[in-house]
Protein backbone atom coordinates (compact mmCIF):
# COMPACT_ATOMS: atom_id res chain seq x y z
CA UNK A 1 0.00 0.00 0.00
CA UNK A 2 1.27 3.47 -0.79
CA UNK A 3 1.75 5.62 2.27
CA UNK A 4 0.43 8.76 0.57
CA UNK A 5 -2.15 8.72 -2.19
CA UNK A 6 -3.21 11.86 -4.01
CA UNK A 7 -6.24 11.17 -6.13
CA UNK A 8 -7.51 13.62 -8.77
CA UNK A 9 -6.74 16.44 -6.42
CA UNK A 10 -7.80 19.97 -7.29
CA UNK A 11 -7.32 22.96 -5.01
CA UNK A 12 -8.88 26.31 -5.78
CA UNK A 13 -8.57 29.64 -4.01
CA UNK A 14 -11.45 31.87 -5.05
CA UNK A 15 -11.77 31.18 -8.77
CA UNK A 16 -8.07 30.56 -9.27
CA UNK A 17 -7.06 26.93 -9.72
CA UNK A 18 -3.83 26.22 -7.82
CA UNK A 19 -3.75 22.46 -8.29
CA UNK A 20 -5.57 20.72 -11.09
CA UNK A 21 -6.45 17.02 -11.08
CA UNK A 22 -3.17 15.76 -9.68
CA UNK A 23 -2.86 12.02 -9.09
CA UNK A 24 0.27 10.72 -7.35
CA UNK A 25 1.25 7.93 -4.98
CA UNK A 26 4.26 7.89 -2.66
CA UNK A 27 5.81 4.69 -1.33
CA UNK A 28 7.33 4.02 2.10
CA UNK A 29 11.10 4.44 2.30
CA UNK A 30 11.26 6.80 -0.67
CA UNK A 31 12.11 10.44 -1.09
CA UNK A 32 10.12 12.34 -3.69
CA UNK A 33 10.75 15.96 -4.53
CA UNK A 34 8.30 18.27 -6.21
CA UNK A 35 10.04 20.74 -8.52
CA UNK A 36 8.72 23.44 -10.78
CA UNK A 37 8.89 27.17 -11.41
CA UNK A 38 7.53 29.74 -8.95
CA UNK A 39 3.76 29.64 -8.80
CA UNK A 40 3.61 26.04 -10.03
CA UNK A 41 1.61 24.97 -6.97
CA UNK A 42 4.36 23.10 -5.11
CA UNK A 43 3.63 24.58 -1.69
CA UNK A 44 -0.12 24.22 -2.19
CA UNK A 45 0.34 20.55 -3.02
CA UNK A 46 2.48 19.74 0.02
CA UNK A 47 0.29 21.81 2.34
CA UNK A 48 -2.72 19.86 1.14
CA UNK A 49 -0.87 16.60 1.76
CA UNK A 50 -0.06 17.87 5.27
CA UNK A 51 -3.76 18.61 5.81
CA UNK A 52 -3.48 22.40 6.07
CA UNK A 53 -5.62 23.02 3.00
CA UNK A 54 -8.87 21.38 2.05
CA UNK A 55 -9.13 19.80 -1.39
CA UNK A 56 -11.72 21.48 -3.64
CA UNK A 57 -12.05 18.22 -5.46
CA UNK A 58 -10.46 14.77 -5.14
CA UNK A 59 -8.77 13.36 -2.08
CA UNK A 60 -5.54 12.85 -0.21
CA UNK A 61 -5.12 9.78 1.92
CA UNK A 62 -2.33 8.90 4.32
CA UNK A 63 -1.82 5.19 5.10
CA UNK A 64 -5.16 4.43 3.51
CA UNK A 65 -7.22 6.99 5.42
CA UNK A 66 -8.68 10.15 3.87
CA UNK A 67 -7.05 13.22 5.36
CA UNK A 68 -10.32 15.15 5.51
CA UNK A 69 -11.79 12.44 7.75
CA UNK A 70 -9.13 12.94 10.42
CA UNK A 71 -9.05 15.53 13.18
CA UNK A 72 -5.90 17.58 13.77
CA UNK A 73 -4.47 15.18 16.30
CA UNK A 74 -4.98 12.05 14.19
CA UNK A 75 -3.41 13.82 11.27
CA UNK A 76 -0.41 14.98 13.33
CA UNK A 77 0.22 11.34 14.25
CA UNK A 78 0.48 10.41 10.56
CA UNK A 79 2.14 13.33 8.80
CA UNK A 80 4.68 15.91 9.99
CA UNK A 81 5.50 19.19 8.27
CA UNK A 82 8.67 21.25 8.04
CA UNK A 83 7.23 24.60 6.93
CA UNK A 84 8.88 27.00 4.54
CA UNK A 85 8.86 29.92 6.99
CA UNK A 86 8.67 28.49 10.51
CA UNK A 87 7.56 30.84 13.28
CA UNK A 88 10.29 31.21 15.89
CA UNK A 89 8.64 31.78 19.29
CA UNK A 90 11.29 33.86 21.04
CA UNK A 91 11.75 33.00 24.69
CA UNK A 92 11.07 29.27 24.21
CA UNK A 93 13.94 26.85 24.78
CA UNK A 94 15.15 24.55 22.02
CA UNK A 95 14.11 21.53 24.07
CA UNK A 96 10.57 22.83 24.58
CA UNK A 97 10.32 23.68 20.89
CA UNK A 98 11.41 20.22 19.74
CA UNK A 99 9.10 18.64 22.33
CA UNK A 100 6.11 20.35 20.65
CA UNK A 101 6.26 17.47 18.19
CA UNK A 102 5.05 15.15 20.97
CA UNK A 103 1.90 17.11 21.77
CA UNK A 104 -0.21 14.94 19.46
CA UNK A 105 1.04 11.89 21.39
CA UNK A 106 0.43 13.00 24.98
CA UNK A 107 -2.43 15.41 24.26
CA UNK A 108 -3.15 18.98 25.36
CA UNK A 109 -4.13 18.05 28.90
CA UNK A 110 -1.38 15.63 29.86
CA UNK A 111 2.30 16.18 30.50
CA UNK A 112 4.93 14.42 28.39
CA UNK A 113 5.40 10.76 29.31
CA UNK A 114 8.84 9.19 29.87
CA UNK A 115 8.53 7.74 26.37
CA UNK A 116 7.83 11.23 24.91
CA UNK A 117 10.90 12.57 26.67
CA UNK A 118 13.02 9.65 25.44
CA UNK A 119 11.98 10.34 21.84
CA UNK A 120 12.90 14.02 22.18
CA UNK A 121 16.29 13.12 23.68
CA UNK A 122 17.06 10.66 20.92
CA UNK A 123 16.15 13.15 18.16
CA UNK A 124 18.23 15.90 19.82
CA UNK A 125 21.10 13.44 19.88
CA UNK A 126 20.74 12.38 16.23
CA UNK A 127 20.53 15.98 15.01
CA UNK A 128 23.43 17.20 17.18
CA UNK A 129 21.19 19.61 19.06
CA UNK A 130 22.00 18.42 22.58
CA UNK A 131 24.28 21.36 23.33
CA UNK A 132 21.53 23.81 22.34
CA UNK A 133 18.74 22.30 24.45
CA UNK A 134 18.55 25.16 26.95
CA UNK A 135 19.12 27.96 24.43
CA UNK A 136 16.42 30.45 23.48
CA UNK A 137 15.22 29.49 19.99
CA UNK A 138 15.63 33.09 18.83
CA UNK A 139 19.39 32.95 19.40
CA UNK A 140 20.12 30.11 16.95
CA UNK A 141 21.77 30.60 13.57
CA UNK A 142 19.86 29.80 10.39
CA UNK A 143 21.36 26.31 10.08
CA UNK A 144 20.76 25.42 13.71
CA UNK A 145 17.23 26.73 13.50
CA UNK A 146 16.35 24.64 10.45
CA UNK A 147 17.79 21.57 12.16
CA UNK A 148 15.63 22.32 15.19
CA UNK A 149 12.50 22.58 13.03
CA UNK A 150 13.40 19.26 11.42
CA UNK A 151 13.89 17.79 14.89
CA UNK A 152 10.39 18.88 15.88
CA UNK A 153 8.95 17.16 12.81
CA UNK A 154 10.89 13.96 13.56
CA UNK A 155 9.69 13.81 17.18
CA UNK A 156 6.18 13.53 15.81
CA UNK A 157 7.29 9.98 14.87
CA UNK A 158 5.16 9.94 11.74
CA UNK A 159 5.71 7.70 8.75
CA UNK A 160 5.21 10.63 6.38
CA UNK A 161 7.28 13.82 6.53
CA UNK A 162 6.59 16.80 4.30
CA UNK A 163 9.39 19.31 3.74
CA UNK A 164 8.52 22.65 2.15
CA UNK A 165 11.75 24.29 0.93
CA UNK A 166 13.65 23.11 4.01
CA UNK A 167 16.98 24.66 3.02
CA UNK A 168 15.89 28.21 2.19
CA UNK A 169 18.46 30.70 3.46
CA UNK A 170 21.12 28.16 4.40
CA UNK A 171 24.70 28.19 3.13
CA UNK A 172 25.87 25.30 0.93
CA UNK A 173 27.33 23.20 3.73
CA UNK A 174 24.23 23.52 5.86
CA UNK A 175 22.03 22.74 2.86
CA UNK A 176 23.91 19.50 2.32
CA UNK A 177 23.93 18.66 6.04
CA UNK A 178 20.23 19.20 6.36
CA UNK A 179 19.39 17.01 3.36
CA UNK A 180 21.88 14.30 4.41
CA UNK A 181 20.27 14.17 7.85
CA UNK A 182 16.87 13.72 6.31
CA UNK A 183 18.16 11.15 3.85
CA UNK A 184 19.57 8.98 6.63
CA UNK A 185 16.22 9.18 8.46
CA UNK A 186 14.49 7.95 5.31
CA UNK A 187 16.81 4.94 5.15
CA UNK A 188 16.84 4.10 8.84
CA UNK A 189 13.17 4.59 9.63
CA UNK A 190 11.57 3.81 6.28
CA UNK A 191 9.99 7.25 6.12
CA UNK A 192 8.07 8.61 3.18
CA UNK A 193 9.44 12.05 2.38
CA UNK A 194 7.68 14.50 0.10
CA UNK A 195 9.70 17.68 -0.36
CA UNK A 196 9.72 20.79 -2.47
CA UNK A 197 13.06 22.22 -3.55
CA UNK A 198 14.14 25.03 -5.82
CA UNK A 199 17.69 23.79 -6.26
CA UNK A 200 17.48 21.31 -9.13
CA UNK A 201 20.95 19.88 -8.54
CA UNK A 202 20.20 19.04 -4.91
CA UNK A 203 16.72 17.88 -5.87
CA UNK A 204 18.26 15.47 -8.37
CA UNK A 205 20.90 14.20 -5.95
CA UNK A 206 18.71 13.60 -2.93
CA UNK A 207 15.39 12.45 -4.34
CA UNK A 208 14.58 8.97 -5.59
CA UNK A 209 11.91 10.49 -7.70
CA UNK A 210 11.13 13.92 -9.09
CA UNK A 211 7.73 15.32 -9.94
CA UNK A 212 7.75 18.37 -12.19
CA UNK A 213 4.75 20.56 -11.52
CA UNK A 214 3.73 23.51 -13.69
CA UNK A 215 0.58 25.62 -13.41
CA UNK A 216 -0.88 23.13 -10.98
CA UNK A 217 -0.47 20.10 -13.24
CA UNK A 218 2.00 17.22 -13.19
CA UNK A 219 4.20 17.50 -16.28
CA UNK A 220 6.70 14.70 -15.70
CA UNK A 221 6.97 12.17 -12.93
CA UNK A 222 9.86 9.73 -12.81
CA UNK A 223 13.30 8.72 -11.54
CA UNK A 224 15.41 11.76 -10.66
CA UNK A 225 18.08 11.19 -13.34
CA UNK A 226 15.50 10.95 -16.12
CA UNK A 227 13.49 14.01 -15.08
CA UNK A 228 16.62 16.14 -14.67
CA UNK A 229 17.66 15.31 -18.21
CA UNK A 230 14.30 15.73 -19.89
CA UNK A 231 13.74 18.46 -22.44
CA UNK A 232 10.48 19.33 -20.77
CA UNK A 233 12.31 20.61 -17.66
CA UNK A 234 14.12 23.40 -19.50
CA UNK A 235 10.99 24.25 -21.43
CA UNK A 236 8.88 24.65 -18.31
CA UNK A 237 11.47 26.81 -16.63
CA UNK A 238 11.70 28.77 -19.90
CA UNK A 239 15.47 28.78 -20.02
CA UNK A 240 18.59 27.05 -21.19
CA UNK A 241 19.63 24.28 -18.81
CA UNK A 242 22.48 21.82 -19.07
CA UNK A 243 23.14 18.73 -17.04
CA UNK A 244 26.80 18.09 -16.36
CA UNK A 245 28.18 14.90 -14.87
CA UNK A 246 30.57 15.69 -12.03
CA UNK A 247 32.11 12.55 -10.48
CA UNK A 248 28.93 10.63 -11.20
CA UNK A 249 26.57 13.29 -9.85
CA UNK A 250 24.20 15.23 -12.06
CA UNK A 251 24.68 18.98 -11.82
CA UNK A 252 22.10 21.25 -13.42
CA UNK A 253 23.63 24.42 -14.78
CA UNK A 254 21.69 27.35 -16.21
CA UNK A 255 23.32 28.75 -19.34
CA UNK A 256 22.86 32.42 -20.10
CA UNK A 257 21.57 33.76 -23.38
CA UNK A 258 20.77 30.58 -25.24
CA UNK A 259 18.41 30.72 -28.20
CA UNK A 260 17.88 27.02 -28.09
CA UNK A 261 15.77 26.58 -24.98
CA UNK A 262 15.93 22.82 -25.28
CA UNK A 263 19.56 22.85 -24.21
CA UNK A 264 22.53 21.19 -25.82
Amino acid sequence: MSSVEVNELSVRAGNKTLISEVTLAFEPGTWSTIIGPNGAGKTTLVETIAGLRRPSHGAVSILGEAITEMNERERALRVALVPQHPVVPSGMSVYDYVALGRVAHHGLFHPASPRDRAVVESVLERLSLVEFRGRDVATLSGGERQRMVLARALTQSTMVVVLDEPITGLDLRHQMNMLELMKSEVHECGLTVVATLHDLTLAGQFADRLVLLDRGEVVIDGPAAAVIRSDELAKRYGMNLRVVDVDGADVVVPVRHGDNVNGA
Partner: protein
Amino acid sequence: MAFVAAGTVVALFVAIVCGLVIGPTSVPTWRVVGDIFAHVGIGHNTLTPLQSTVVWTLRAPRMVIGLLAGSMLAVAGGTYQGVFRNPLADPYLLGVASGAGLGATFAIIDLSHGVGTPTWTPLLAFVGAMAAVIVTWLIGGRSIRSNTSTLILAGVAVASLLTSAQTFLQQQSSAGSITRVYIWLLGSLASAGWGTVWLVFPYVIVCIIICVGAGRALDVMSVGEEESRSLGVPVRRVRFIVIAASSLGTAAIVSAVGLIGFVGIIVPHIVRLLVGTSYRRILPISVIFGAAFLVFADTIARTVIAPSELPLGVVTALIGAPVFVIILSLRRPVPV
Protein backbone atom coordinates in the same frame (compact mmCIF):
# COMPACT_ATOMS: atom_id res chain seq x y z
CA MET B 1 9.87 29.32 39.28
CA ALA B 2 9.16 27.67 42.67
CA PHE B 3 10.51 30.81 44.30
CA VAL B 4 8.18 33.04 42.30
CA ALA B 5 5.20 30.76 42.99
CA ALA B 6 5.91 30.76 46.73
CA GLY B 7 6.40 34.53 46.65
CA THR B 8 3.05 35.16 44.97
CA VAL B 9 1.25 32.87 47.43
CA VAL B 10 2.78 34.79 50.35
CA ALA B 11 1.82 38.08 48.64
CA LEU B 12 -1.73 36.76 48.27
CA PHE B 13 -1.95 35.89 51.96
CA VAL B 14 -0.57 39.28 52.99
CA ALA B 15 -3.03 40.99 50.63
CA ILE B 16 -5.96 39.08 52.15
CA VAL B 17 -4.92 40.04 55.68
CA CYS B 18 -4.41 43.70 54.65
CA GLY B 19 -7.82 43.69 52.97
CA LEU B 20 -9.44 42.52 56.20
CA VAL B 21 -7.36 44.45 58.75
CA ILE B 22 -6.87 47.90 57.25
CA GLY B 23 -9.73 50.38 57.53
CA PRO B 24 -11.26 53.11 59.68
CA THR B 25 -12.28 50.70 62.46
CA SER B 26 -9.05 49.37 63.87
CA VAL B 27 -8.91 45.64 64.39
CA PRO B 28 -5.66 44.04 65.60
CA THR B 29 -3.99 41.92 62.92
CA TRP B 30 -3.47 38.90 65.17
CA ARG B 31 -7.17 38.83 66.02
CA VAL B 32 -8.13 38.83 62.34
CA VAL B 33 -5.61 36.09 61.53
CA GLY B 34 -6.87 34.10 64.54
CA ASP B 35 -10.44 34.53 63.36
CA ILE B 36 -9.53 33.38 59.82
CA PHE B 37 -8.17 30.17 61.36
CA ALA B 38 -11.28 29.90 63.58
CA HIS B 39 -13.40 30.00 60.40
CA VAL B 40 -11.60 26.97 59.04
CA GLY B 41 -12.00 25.14 62.36
CA ILE B 42 -8.71 25.88 64.11
CA GLY B 43 -9.01 27.68 67.50
CA HIS B 44 -11.76 30.02 68.71
CA ASN B 45 -13.29 33.29 67.57
CA THR B 46 -11.05 36.17 68.50
CA LEU B 47 -13.16 39.17 67.39
CA THR B 48 -15.78 41.18 69.24
CA PRO B 49 -19.24 41.15 67.59
CA LEU B 50 -18.66 44.69 66.19
CA GLN B 51 -15.26 43.78 64.83
CA SER B 52 -16.70 40.60 63.40
CA THR B 53 -19.39 42.56 61.53
CA VAL B 54 -16.86 45.05 60.17
CA VAL B 55 -14.46 42.35 59.05
CA TRP B 56 -16.83 39.69 57.74
CA THR B 57 -19.78 41.71 56.45
CA LEU B 58 -18.11 44.87 55.17
CA ARG B 59 -14.50 44.10 54.36
CA ALA B 60 -14.56 40.39 53.49
CA PRO B 61 -16.97 40.49 50.52
CA ARG B 62 -15.12 43.49 49.13
CA MET B 63 -11.83 41.64 49.54
CA VAL B 64 -13.25 38.48 47.91
CA ILE B 65 -14.66 40.33 44.92
CA GLY B 66 -11.24 41.95 44.59
CA LEU B 67 -9.63 38.52 44.53
CA LEU B 68 -12.08 37.30 41.90
CA ALA B 69 -11.76 40.42 39.75
CA GLY B 70 -7.98 40.48 39.96
CA SER B 71 -7.54 36.83 39.04
CA MET B 72 -10.13 36.89 36.28
CA LEU B 73 -8.84 40.04 34.59
CA ALA B 74 -5.22 38.90 34.86
CA VAL B 75 -5.83 35.41 33.52
CA ALA B 76 -8.11 36.72 30.74
CA GLY B 77 -5.42 39.21 29.72
CA GLY B 78 -2.76 36.48 29.68
CA THR B 79 -5.04 34.21 27.67
CA TYR B 80 -5.82 36.95 25.14
CA GLN B 81 -2.12 37.75 24.76
CA GLY B 82 -1.51 34.07 24.04
CA VAL B 83 -4.38 33.46 21.67
CA PHE B 84 -3.74 36.67 19.71
CA ARG B 85 0.05 36.39 20.01
CA ASN B 86 -0.03 40.09 20.74
CA PRO B 87 1.56 41.80 23.76
CA LEU B 88 -0.99 44.64 23.67
CA ALA B 89 -4.01 42.37 24.04
CA ASP B 90 -6.08 42.89 27.16
CA PRO B 91 -9.42 41.49 28.32
CA TYR B 92 -11.28 44.45 26.77
CA LEU B 93 -9.86 43.82 23.28
CA LEU B 94 -13.01 42.41 21.70
CA GLY B 95 -15.43 45.05 22.93
CA VAL B 96 -16.32 43.83 26.44
CA ALA B 97 -15.57 47.22 27.97
CA SER B 98 -17.44 49.34 25.46
CA GLY B 99 -20.39 46.94 25.44
CA ALA B 100 -20.61 47.01 29.22
CA GLY B 101 -20.13 50.78 29.17
CA LEU B 102 -23.03 51.26 26.77
CA GLY B 103 -25.26 48.88 28.75
CA ALA B 104 -24.50 50.63 32.03
CA THR B 105 -24.90 54.10 30.52
CA PHE B 106 -28.25 53.12 29.08
CA ALA B 107 -29.38 51.83 32.48
CA ILE B 108 -28.16 54.87 34.39
CA ILE B 109 -29.36 57.54 31.98
CA ASP B 110 -32.51 56.14 30.41
CA LEU B 111 -33.92 53.87 33.08
CA SER B 112 -33.07 55.73 36.27
CA HIS B 113 -35.51 58.66 35.78
CA GLY B 114 -32.69 60.98 36.74
CA VAL B 115 -31.80 59.59 40.15
CA GLY B 116 -29.47 56.89 41.44
CA THR B 117 -27.89 53.92 39.74
CA PRO B 118 -30.60 51.35 39.01
CA THR B 119 -30.20 47.80 40.29
CA TRP B 120 -30.27 46.35 36.82
CA THR B 121 -27.16 48.29 35.78
CA PRO B 122 -24.96 45.18 36.22
CA LEU B 123 -27.38 43.07 34.19
CA LEU B 124 -27.46 45.53 31.30
CA ALA B 125 -23.69 45.93 31.48
CA PHE B 126 -23.31 42.15 31.28
CA VAL B 127 -25.72 41.88 28.35
CA GLY B 128 -23.91 44.72 26.57
CA ALA B 129 -20.51 43.15 27.14
CA MET B 130 -21.53 39.72 25.87
CA ALA B 131 -23.43 41.17 22.91
CA ALA B 132 -20.36 43.16 21.88
CA VAL B 133 -18.08 40.10 21.96
CA ILE B 134 -20.61 37.98 20.10
CA VAL B 135 -21.01 40.60 17.36
CA THR B 136 -17.21 40.91 17.11
CA TRP B 137 -16.93 37.14 16.78
CA LEU B 138 -19.66 36.96 14.13
CA ILE B 139 -17.89 39.63 12.07
CA GLY B 140 -14.31 38.55 12.50
CA GLY B 141 -14.03 35.06 13.90
CA ARG B 142 -16.36 32.75 12.05
CA SER B 143 -15.12 32.71 8.51
CA ILE B 144 -12.71 29.91 7.65
CA ARG B 145 -10.21 32.37 6.23
CA SER B 146 -10.31 34.80 9.14
CA ASN B 147 -7.29 35.07 11.37
CA THR B 148 -6.66 36.76 14.68
CA SER B 149 -5.94 40.12 13.03
CA THR B 150 -9.42 40.12 11.47
CA LEU B 151 -10.87 39.47 14.89
CA ILE B 152 -8.86 42.26 16.54
CA LEU B 153 -9.92 44.71 13.84
CA ALA B 154 -13.55 43.63 14.19
CA GLY B 155 -13.16 44.27 17.93
CA VAL B 156 -11.81 47.75 17.28
CA ALA B 157 -14.71 48.54 14.94
CA VAL B 158 -17.38 47.23 17.34
CA ALA B 159 -15.77 49.03 20.29
CA SER B 160 -15.65 52.40 18.54
CA LEU B 161 -19.25 52.04 17.37
CA LEU B 162 -20.49 51.23 20.88
CA THR B 163 -18.35 53.95 22.47
CA SER B 164 -19.75 56.56 20.11
CA ALA B 165 -23.29 55.38 20.94
CA GLN B 166 -22.46 55.69 24.61
CA THR B 167 -21.00 59.18 24.12
CA PHE B 168 -24.17 60.19 22.30
CA LEU B 169 -26.34 58.96 25.20
CA GLN B 170 -24.19 60.86 27.68
CA GLN B 171 -24.28 64.01 25.60
CA GLN B 172 -28.09 63.90 25.61
CA SER B 173 -28.34 63.58 29.37
CA SER B 174 -28.01 65.67 32.51
CA ALA B 175 -24.75 66.47 34.26
CA GLY B 176 -25.79 64.40 37.29
CA SER B 177 -26.23 61.20 35.35
CA ILE B 178 -22.99 61.79 33.46
CA THR B 179 -21.18 61.87 36.80
CA ARG B 180 -22.80 58.59 37.86
CA VAL B 181 -21.89 56.98 34.55
CA TYR B 182 -18.35 58.22 34.95
CA ILE B 183 -18.07 56.84 38.48
CA TRP B 184 -19.38 53.49 37.30
CA LEU B 185 -16.93 53.40 34.39
CA LEU B 186 -13.95 54.03 36.63
CA GLY B 187 -14.62 50.85 38.53
CA SER B 188 -14.98 50.31 42.26
CA LEU B 189 -15.37 47.43 44.65
CA ALA B 190 -17.25 49.64 47.15
CA SER B 191 -20.76 48.37 46.48
CA ALA B 192 -19.80 44.69 46.59
CA GLY B 193 -21.60 42.53 49.14
CA TRP B 194 -21.80 38.77 49.54
CA GLY B 195 -24.69 38.78 47.04
CA THR B 196 -22.42 40.12 44.30
CA VAL B 197 -19.74 37.62 45.24
CA TRP B 198 -22.06 34.63 44.90
CA LEU B 199 -23.49 36.01 41.67
CA VAL B 200 -20.17 36.21 39.83
CA PHE B 201 -18.35 33.38 41.63
CA PRO B 202 -19.55 30.44 39.47
CA TYR B 203 -18.80 32.20 36.16
CA VAL B 204 -15.41 33.37 37.26
CA ILE B 205 -14.26 30.04 38.69
CA VAL B 206 -15.31 28.06 35.62
CA CYS B 207 -13.73 30.61 33.27
CA ILE B 208 -10.47 30.69 35.23
CA ILE B 209 -10.25 26.89 35.16
CA ILE B 210 -10.82 26.83 31.39
CA CYS B 211 -8.20 29.53 30.74
CA VAL B 212 -5.57 27.93 32.96
CA GLY B 213 -6.32 24.53 31.40
CA ALA B 214 -5.62 25.99 27.96
CA GLY B 215 -2.01 26.79 28.91
CA ARG B 216 -0.45 23.91 27.00
CA ALA B 217 -2.52 24.64 23.90
CA LEU B 218 -1.48 28.30 24.01
CA ASP B 219 2.17 27.24 24.30
CA VAL B 220 1.86 25.22 21.10
CA MET B 221 -0.05 28.04 19.42
CA SER B 222 2.93 30.35 19.90
CA VAL B 223 4.25 28.86 16.64
CA GLY B 224 1.27 30.24 14.74
CA GLU B 225 -1.99 28.84 13.46
CA GLU B 226 -0.79 26.64 10.58
CA GLU B 227 2.08 25.05 12.42
CA SER B 228 0.07 24.36 15.55
CA ARG B 229 -2.58 22.67 13.41
CA SER B 230 0.11 20.49 11.86
CA LEU B 231 1.25 19.64 15.41
CA GLY B 232 -2.24 18.38 16.24
CA VAL B 233 -3.95 21.34 17.92
CA PRO B 234 -7.55 22.10 16.84
CA VAL B 235 -6.70 25.81 16.70
CA ARG B 236 -10.11 27.20 15.82
CA ARG B 237 -11.87 25.25 18.55
CA VAL B 238 -9.28 26.19 21.17
CA ARG B 239 -9.50 29.82 20.12
CA PHE B 240 -13.30 29.81 20.35
CA ILE B 241 -13.34 28.17 23.77
CA VAL B 242 -10.70 30.36 25.40
CA ILE B 243 -12.10 33.57 23.94
CA ALA B 244 -15.57 32.59 25.12
CA ALA B 245 -14.31 31.78 28.61
CA SER B 246 -12.15 34.92 28.97
CA SER B 247 -14.93 37.15 27.67
CA LEU B 248 -17.67 35.60 29.80
CA GLY B 249 -15.57 35.86 32.96
CA THR B 250 -14.52 39.41 32.16
CA ALA B 251 -18.10 40.44 31.40
CA ALA B 252 -19.25 39.04 34.75
CA ILE B 253 -16.53 40.95 36.60
CA VAL B 254 -17.04 44.19 34.67
CA SER B 255 -20.78 44.12 35.29
CA ALA B 256 -20.15 43.73 39.02
CA VAL B 257 -17.32 46.21 39.59
CA GLY B 258 -17.10 48.41 36.49
CA LEU B 259 -14.10 48.91 34.25
CA ILE B 260 -10.88 48.28 36.09
CA GLY B 261 -8.06 48.90 33.68
CA PHE B 262 -4.44 47.88 33.62
CA VAL B 263 -4.65 44.63 35.65
CA GLY B 264 -5.40 42.55 32.58
CA ILE B 265 -2.52 43.86 30.54
CA ILE B 266 0.16 44.47 33.13
CA VAL B 267 -0.13 41.51 35.51
CA PRO B 268 0.49 38.83 32.83
CA HIS B 269 3.47 40.83 31.56
CA ILE B 270 5.00 41.14 35.02
CA VAL B 271 4.49 37.41 35.53
CA ARG B 272 5.97 36.63 32.11
CA LEU B 273 9.08 38.62 32.94
CA LEU B 274 9.44 36.61 36.15
CA VAL B 275 8.66 33.05 35.00
CA GLY B 276 9.34 32.99 31.25
CA THR B 277 7.13 32.59 28.22
CA SER B 278 5.29 29.34 28.94
CA TYR B 279 1.56 29.87 29.43
CA ARG B 280 1.48 26.80 31.63
CA ARG B 281 3.32 28.96 34.18
CA ILE B 282 2.10 32.44 33.25
CA LEU B 283 -1.62 31.69 33.60
CA PRO B 284 -1.75 30.02 37.05
CA ILE B 285 0.72 32.52 38.53
CA SER B 286 -1.30 35.38 37.00
CA VAL B 287 -4.41 34.10 38.78
CA ILE B 288 -2.72 34.40 42.18
CA PHE B 289 -0.70 37.52 41.41
CA GLY B 290 -3.69 39.32 39.87
CA ALA B 291 -5.80 38.56 42.96
CA ALA B 292 -3.12 39.84 45.35
CA PHE B 293 -2.42 42.88 43.20
CA LEU B 294 -6.02 44.04 43.01
CA VAL B 295 -6.70 43.57 46.72
CA PHE B 296 -3.58 45.61 47.55
CA ALA B 297 -4.64 48.28 45.08
CA ASP B 298 -8.15 48.40 46.55
CA THR B 299 -6.79 48.65 50.09
CA ILE B 300 -4.84 51.70 48.99
CA ALA B 301 -7.79 53.10 47.03
CA ARG B 302 -10.08 53.06 50.06
CA THR B 303 -7.59 54.29 52.67
CA VAL B 304 -5.33 57.07 51.36
CA ILE B 305 -8.02 59.75 51.18
CA ALA B 306 -10.53 58.09 53.59
CA PRO B 307 -13.41 58.49 54.10
CA SER B 308 -13.46 59.26 50.38
CA GLU B 309 -12.05 56.75 47.86
CA LEU B 310 -9.70 56.88 44.91
CA PRO B 311 -10.94 55.25 41.72
CA LEU B 312 -9.51 51.71 41.65
CA GLY B 313 -8.44 51.99 38.00
CA VAL B 314 -6.29 55.00 38.89
CA VAL B 315 -4.57 53.11 41.68
CA THR B 316 -3.90 49.99 39.60
CA ALA B 317 -2.18 52.16 36.98
CA LEU B 318 -0.31 54.21 39.59
CA ILE B 319 1.19 51.10 41.19
CA GLY B 320 1.29 48.87 38.16
CA ALA B 321 3.09 51.18 35.74
CA PRO B 322 6.17 51.87 37.92
CA VAL B 323 6.45 48.21 38.96
CA PHE B 324 6.26 47.20 35.33
CA VAL B 325 8.82 49.78 34.25
CA ILE B 326 11.25 48.61 36.95
CA ILE B 327 10.95 44.96 35.92
CA LEU B 328 11.12 45.90 32.25
CA SER B 329 14.36 47.78 32.74
CA LEU B 330 15.87 44.79 34.54
CA ARG B 331 14.73 42.14 32.06
CA ARG B 332 14.43 42.84 28.36
CA PRO B 333 13.40 42.47 25.61
CA VAL B 334 9.73 41.75 26.24
CA PRO B 335 9.08 38.16 25.21
CA VAL B 336 5.63 37.26 23.93
